[in-house]
């Protein structure tokens, strides 16, 4: 297990993440222009979708793939449900719904880093896992919005997004929220790239290899440097203070979710690679799609809490320790 951790820490992309976090923590003036940072996230989503789609076209969707997708759907509904029940005792109901959505959804970069980790260890996984990732993005958002609507309906008089405002401002409708959730740019780009990859298949994959494969590792390292900078600054410069119980949640929940995911993967007889990816996906928390939609759909929740927990605690935990840990556990159970 120790060897797995060491090997993960010696991956150049992971080392750049650590470097970024250090540079951010010591308040250096290094900046990655926001436009480049956004370009990199677009690139990673495109490459991920294209590769997953092309692999699906080549290898098809076997029964194991369907089971993996079913396990992903189950995790995407279970995690927000039990997270909300746990959090409801500790925090405001709207914050609980927002955090449940954040942890019920997934982080594409954690997924990409897990794929990279498996490739480094020569462990195979199915292209359908990208589909599994896509289906895990939205259920948590819908559940959280429904939970927030329920809490509002119990709230009685007073202003609420569910009611028209005194000025005539229309109420926040479920139709609008669903539109935001399913037309989110990152989400659409990933689905679109997956479809393009599926349409062009192996031939297209070879044609796009200089873009999706040759420069992938370098651009991932650059993106992780930027993420490290952001994490370092969020931890050391942000004025947001997170309650100790929420810090514990952000550190423990990934392991709890990964354990449930591995139990499901074991039950469904998934391969070791697919099981590790399912665990990493379930352990990850969204910091792009969900915060963007929750800011709009659950305005009562505090973004400083759910965004900081996801980006500054859970993301680095998974990247540095979580992925090798889940992989090591599959090593014990699957061999």
């Amino acid at each position, binding site marked *: 297990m120790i060897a797995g951790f060491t090997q993960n820490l010696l991956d150049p992309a992971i080392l750049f993440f650590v470097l970024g976090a250090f540079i951010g923590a010591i308040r250096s003036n290094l900046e*990655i222009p*926001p436009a480049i*940072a*956004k370009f990199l*996230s677009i690139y990673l989503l495109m490459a991920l979708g294209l590769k997953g789609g092309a692999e699906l076209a080549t290898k098809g969707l076997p029964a194991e793939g369907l089971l993996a997708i079913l396990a992903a759907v189950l995790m995407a509904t279970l995690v927000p449900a039990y997270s909300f029940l746990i959090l409801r005792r500790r925090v405001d109901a*709207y914050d609980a719904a927002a955090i449940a959505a954040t942890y019920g959804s997934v982080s594409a970069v954690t997924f990409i880093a897990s794929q990279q980790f498996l490739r480094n260890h020569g462990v195979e996984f199915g292209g359908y896992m990208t589909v599994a990732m896509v289906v895990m993005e939205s259920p948590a958002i819908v559940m959280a919005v429904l939970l927030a609507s329920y809490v509002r309906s119990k709230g009685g008089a007073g*202003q*609420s*997004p569910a009611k028209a*405002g*005194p*000025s*005539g*401002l229309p109420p*926040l409708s479920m139709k609008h929220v669903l539109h935001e959730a399913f037309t989110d*740019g*990152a989400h659409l780009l990933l689905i679109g790239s997956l479809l393009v990859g599926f349409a062009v298949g192996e031939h297209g994959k070879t044609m796009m290899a200089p873009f999706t494969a040759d420069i992938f590792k370098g651009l991932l390292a650059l993106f992780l440097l*930027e993420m490290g*900078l*952001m994490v370092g*600054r*969020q931890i050391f*410069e*942000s*004025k*947001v203070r997170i309650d100790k119980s929420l810090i514990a949640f952000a550190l423990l929940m990934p392991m709890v979710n990964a354990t449930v995911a591995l139990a499901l993967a074991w039950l469904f007889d998934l391969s070791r690679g697919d099981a590790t990816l399912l665990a990493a996906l379930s352990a990850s928390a969204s*910091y*792009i*799609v969900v*915060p*963007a*939609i929750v*800011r*709009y759909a*659950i*305005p*009562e*929740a*505090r*973004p*400083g809490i759910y*965004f*900081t927990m996801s*980006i500054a605690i859970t993301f680095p935990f998974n990247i540095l320790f979580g992925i090798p840990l889940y992989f090591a556990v599959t090593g014990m159970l699957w061999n």
Partner: protein
Amino acid sequence: MRALEQKKMLTLIAPSELQRLILETLSRRGIGGYTVVPATGAGASGIQSGMLFSDSNVVIYIILSEPRLLSVLEDLDDMMQRGYRIKAIIQDIALLPRKPESR
């Protein structure tokens, strides 16, 4: 030189996710002219680094008359009451009016 026109400038600072909601709200009040600038910053919600789509701010500038400003402020107040994190800054400004159209 032509006389300066007295107007109000409304400056809104908001997360970029709320840009569309704000512009739709302005549009309902008949306001179709605005300037949007990407912005970074920090506040009660943490650091908005501008590096991700989910941690970017925008600054929206709108020049408008006082009666129209009051109706927009009512909408903004409703939005803030709902929990949306928006900063609204109002300034008196003087504007060199648009060149009159030639007949």
